[in-house]
């Protein structure tokens, strides 16, 4: 379990990046918190810098759309999903469970 940030530091529509061996992007999509791999599965771009719309994030480089709930891209140029992570919100803090790394096929 790694600490992302305080809930108050991630208002609706915002995103943040947790750096590390595998960087993770955390989003507040209309009050729901989601965490996915930060690096786009297509080419080197940081999804935490992408455009958030509903529960989808658009890659800032090539506009591939990823579903934050499943990590699955909905259009080219991305073909492969990004990993999703479980998120726990406790005592005003957001935690990401990296053990639950699930590869979505």
């Amino acid at each position, binding site marked *: 379990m790694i600490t992302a940030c305080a809930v108050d530091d991630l208002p609706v529509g915002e995103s943040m990046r947790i750096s590390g061996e595998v960087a993770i992007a955390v989003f507040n999509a209309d009050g729901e918190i989601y965490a996915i791999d930060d690096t786009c599965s297509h080419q080197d771009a940081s999804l935490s810098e992408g*455009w958030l719309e509903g529960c989808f994030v*658009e890659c*800032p480089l090539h506009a591939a759309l990823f579903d934050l709930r499943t990590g699955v891209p909905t259009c*080219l140029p991305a*073909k492969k999903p990004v990993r999703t992570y479980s998120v726990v919100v406790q005592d005003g803090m957001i935690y990401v469970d990296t053990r639950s790394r699930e590869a979505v096929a």
Partner: protein
Amino acid sequence: MRTVAVVGASLAGLRSVEELRKQGFDGRIVVIGEEVHAPYDRPPLTKAFLAGTLPAAELALSDDDFAAEWKLGVRADRVDPSTGSVHLSSGEIVRTDGLVIATGGRPRALPGTAAMSGVHTLRTLDDAVALQADLRPGARVVVVGAGWIGAEVASTCRALDLDVTVVEAAPVPMERALGATLGALCADLHTDHGVELRLGVGVAAFAHNGSRVTGVVLRDGSHLPADVVVAGIGMEPATGWLRGSGLPLDNGVLCDTGCVTSIPSVVAVGDVARYRTPLGGHVRHEHWTNASEQPVVAVRNLLAGATIETFRPSGYVWSDQYGVRLQIAGETAGADEIAVIDGSPDDRKFVAEFRRSGQPVGIFAMNNAKLFGRMRRQLAAATG
């Protein structure tokens, strides 16, 4: 419409096939591609693929064949629109009642280098494989042209620790698109990273040892020793096969505001398409986003049999050089004012707005994808 032929199997061709199916066409689709490779992504060819960090298998654009017939390694030699026949280099004739022209173009070669090894252009995967094989440790590389392709190749060669010189005939690179100040800033990216930059001087001749290039002679008389020369001096649209077809050709395939040619059952997309803008005049774009966006409109009009939708380009272009991400949107070339609205060019992290008569018409960002994405949407809403 029962059969649609898509000539050209790169991004614009693939996106056309995808759009045909997405928009409900369930007839026969025949795709004709001159390269033997299934559609692949070209932007990494100057970057991660050339650097050796991205294998060729990762370049594939799609795992789906969209139930189309893919004829790869075959060229379309000519087309007869009156009978709907596409004649292939294999001798085969494809009969079709809809045609998507997506043949892209060929890179311009440096005059007088045809018989010389060590001189490269870069557009296809095979081009990139050949260049990569020449980038041996210690190789001295001269890049001719400081546009996007030249700049990215120079950046990758520097990352491979090669000795790199960039030669550009214009006094400022990218000046038309970016203006003098930001063009000069792009020039600084090269010198920041130990690349020698020769601006405002053209190439006079190439030195060789009988078979292989050994140097580049500039118009000011200087001589640059070279083991490898890469030309990034633009491309020519591939329209030779359409000569005699009756389709209007002029620096590309001329089409209307919806990518439809003079024949309603023939549309053109991507680098080869020179379409009419709503303001009059024809333009052709040579970039990835255009090849991805145009098929949506072109296919809609093809299936409708008439121009029911106008193409509106996003003008989005990106480039990665020396670890710096550059992004452009809109019509920066038409600006009369450029204002930095966030960050600082000195830090190589900023966003600039391009304006015409006080109205925003374009955006340029270095290393600020997040703000760029926001502003790009605002610009599209304001100008769309």
